[in-house]
């Protein structure tokens, strides 16, 4: 066990854990930030996506000891980012979720995409989002919401 001080959503937090403990479990069990989800533990599903210095990473395979001074942003803090806020609003407006379990990770990946590429095309969306599984397969809406957040024309499939 050792003390680690990391910056999460702009705040310094100190935890006393094993250095191998993945960031995912530090966030969930030590810091009580439950928004970041566990799906596979092996970087396959993207449910645990957070930003480290703005880059999307899979927190389930990121040991706490590797985080260091970097800025960690989670779904709980992404609304403070103007792009993150837009993405959240688009998700609400297009009623994206089914079960909702994957959506924190989807929003984190979508925000990272739009922060780098304000006008993504379908291929860009495929590339940025294919690491995030939605078991309910809300992909039609996720794609539409990313375009909506980018101010691009989008298919709204909410009406019959």
């Amino acid at each position, binding site marked *: 066990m050792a003390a680690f001080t990391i910056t999460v959503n702009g705040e310094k937090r100190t935890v006393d854990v094993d250095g191998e403990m993945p960031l995912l479990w530090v966030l969930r069990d030590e810091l009580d930030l*439950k928004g970041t989800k566990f799906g596979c533990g092996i970087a396959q599903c993207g449910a645990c996506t957070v930003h480290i210095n703005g880059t999307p990473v899979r927190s389930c395979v990121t040991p706490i000891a590797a985080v260091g001074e970097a800025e960690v942003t989670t779904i*709980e803090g992404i609304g403070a980012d103007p792009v993150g806020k837009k993405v959240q609003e688009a998700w609400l407006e297009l009623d*994206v979720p089914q*079960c909702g*379990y*994957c959506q*924190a990770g989807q929003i984190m990946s979508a925000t990272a995409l739009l922060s780098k590429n304000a006008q993504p095309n379908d291929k860009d*969306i495929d590339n940025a989002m294919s690491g995030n599984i939605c078991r309910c*397969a*809300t992909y039609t809406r996720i794609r539409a919401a990313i375009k909506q957040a980018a101010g691009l024309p989008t298919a709204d499939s909410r009406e019959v």
Partner: protein
Amino acid sequence: MARTSTLEQATATTAVQAMPESGPAAISRRTFLTVSAAAGGGLLLGFTLPQLAKANGAAAAPLNAFVRIARDGIVTIIAKSPEVGQGVKNMLPMLIAEELDVAWKNVRIEQAKLDPVYGPQFAGGSFSTPMHWDSLRRVGAAGRHMLVTAAAQTWGVPAEECETSEGVVRHKGSGKTLTYGELAAKAARLKAPDPNSLKLKDPKDYKIIGQPLPGVDNPLIVEGKPLFGIDVKVPGMRHAVFQKSPVVGSRIVSANIDEIKALPGVRNAFIVRGADDNGLPDGMSVTVLEGVAIVADSWWVAERARQKLKIEWAENPIATQSSKSFAEQAERLSKEAPTKVVRKDGDVDAALGRAAKTVEAAYAYPFLSHATLEPQNCTAHYKNGKVEIWAPTQMPDRGRALVASTLGIKPEDVTIHLIRCGGGFGRRLANDYMVEAAVISKMQGEPVKLVWNRTDDMRHDMYRPAGFHYFKAGLDADGKLIAFRDHFVTFGEGDKVASSAEITENEFPARFVDNLEIGMSLIPLGIPTGPLRAPGSNGLAFAFGSFMDELAHAAGKDPLEFLLEVFGEPRVLEAPPPAFGMRMPPFDVGRARGVLELVREKSGWGQRQLPKGTGMGVAFYYSHMGYFAEVVQVTAGPQGIKLDKIWVAGDVGSQIINPSMAKNQCEGAALDGIGECFQEITIEGGSVVQSNLHEYPLLRMNQAPPVEVHFRLSDAPPTGLGEPALPPAIPALCNAIFAATGQRVRKLPIKLTDFRIT
């Protein structure tokens, strides 16, 4: 058309208890009786949350078990059933709110606990809509009636002279008004009316039903607020992992418990003995399988300790079972006569003898896992002979019964909180993880949250059973289908067919071909099976839907035309017998034709000149009372197959209650069907080979084509949408691959890269 699937039989237990009489009227009467017994009674005091009352500036008056109204007009409606992502937390309260006649913006939704006052509380079989369409609208109408009566009494005028609009009662003559908030306390003291005496709204006056209302939990979801089972936290809670045998149900000979206990951060470790009657192999009855529990202050510490765990497992007879041996047995059985005749019409052999053309084909599909994105988990707190449970479950009352019998306590001493599920797909109709958590909490003497890792989840599922179909059919000189035979080799023993491995006597084209036989042979199985979204149908649709396409091509006919021809003229067939206390609607040929015609129009089927390598496939399937026809378009190239688009046409009755979630469900279900084409669970040595998502591919964004959904409205009462859009997507894809490449898919899973054309 597997209507009485195993899932439905499973839900039957729940439904039957709550609905001793049959028919929707009986359901509503029953619901209502409990409602009226509760109205204004002490039973509901617990629901008047102090903080809510304070926030609203006054106590909220309960009108019935589902509705309470605060003085400021804020209406709280109880969402009675488990939310698994199918949208019932919105949809069911919408039915009440519509007839209560309140503005949706003034509605607050609260999740119910498991409580008999609400009637059946389960999420399965796409039953939420047909079971509640009538009864919950009447709950709302009864509330409205009581509010109107209260207003009329206050004014001393006949109730008939009063009207309502969005939470306000108005006297037509004088123009006087009173808000529901002002009337609620008085209304709550009135006797509830007979629900069947109430007149329901004309659908053209609907203000809430038919609106695309966003999910009530969406704001919490996008901000990452705790919401799911895995997020539950109770005071003093420990974290647990539970290691079971990869060969399902093996007993423990020895385990290095002391070594595990000594690891840093580990609080405790112990063997949990498996129940003698552990429920196997019926996945939904599984209670406790033997294993080792490790308890720690955080989940990861317990999980890491598991890597040091050494268990010697006892020999287990099912270790001889494997997917390979199942396929060999199926091949052998296919050469013999079926052991069970499911249906026999006319004389198939004679008709085959005079057929101008016969077609023979063998189809096979594998076991599948549910792989809900949220792994199975449950939090339990056992104390003094009672247990409180926080569970993401689709069938809480069955969980309660299993927990009570396993712990030897009374069902009343099991409290279950219904927690939002990170996906269900049928997996959480079983409650094995709930029983485990309860037992571990009891043994630990503390509240415990048990979370399975992905490998636990994939290796301890109740799998969609594999299946093998040996078809032979005959066409006459005009290409008319005159003979059809299926020998279905599936799983079970003696008379007992494994859970979700059934076929019914009405599987299409049964009833549309004069000479038809469906027979079954069974392979013994020790691996638990159970319902996966559209159970039965998800495998049968592939085999039957693909073989019908083969027949169309053999007949030299357009596959969509061929289906219409087999269906024949619009007519309504004889209704199947009631199942689990509910009248089952008859099959309506007009509705089947209707969705085929709709998908033809919307997809431009047969209208467009397709480039070389591009093909369209069509399929129809009826399940869960819903009629669905789907077209898939694919393009084959040097890299393999690319999916271009899916068109879905569905008929689920007269009304789409919440179009936004309805379309979301159909898009998701069609894509779920596509995803299943690439998945496989294999059994070797009695255990599941796949351990995580790298070996069990779930559909990803770059593989998901656009989906276009269209509904055809018909006269029938609305039915559910969680499942019926799934099955036809599978054969539609396979038929499109044939259209594009000339290669027929007779075995799942497939790899899209295997179908290349240059």
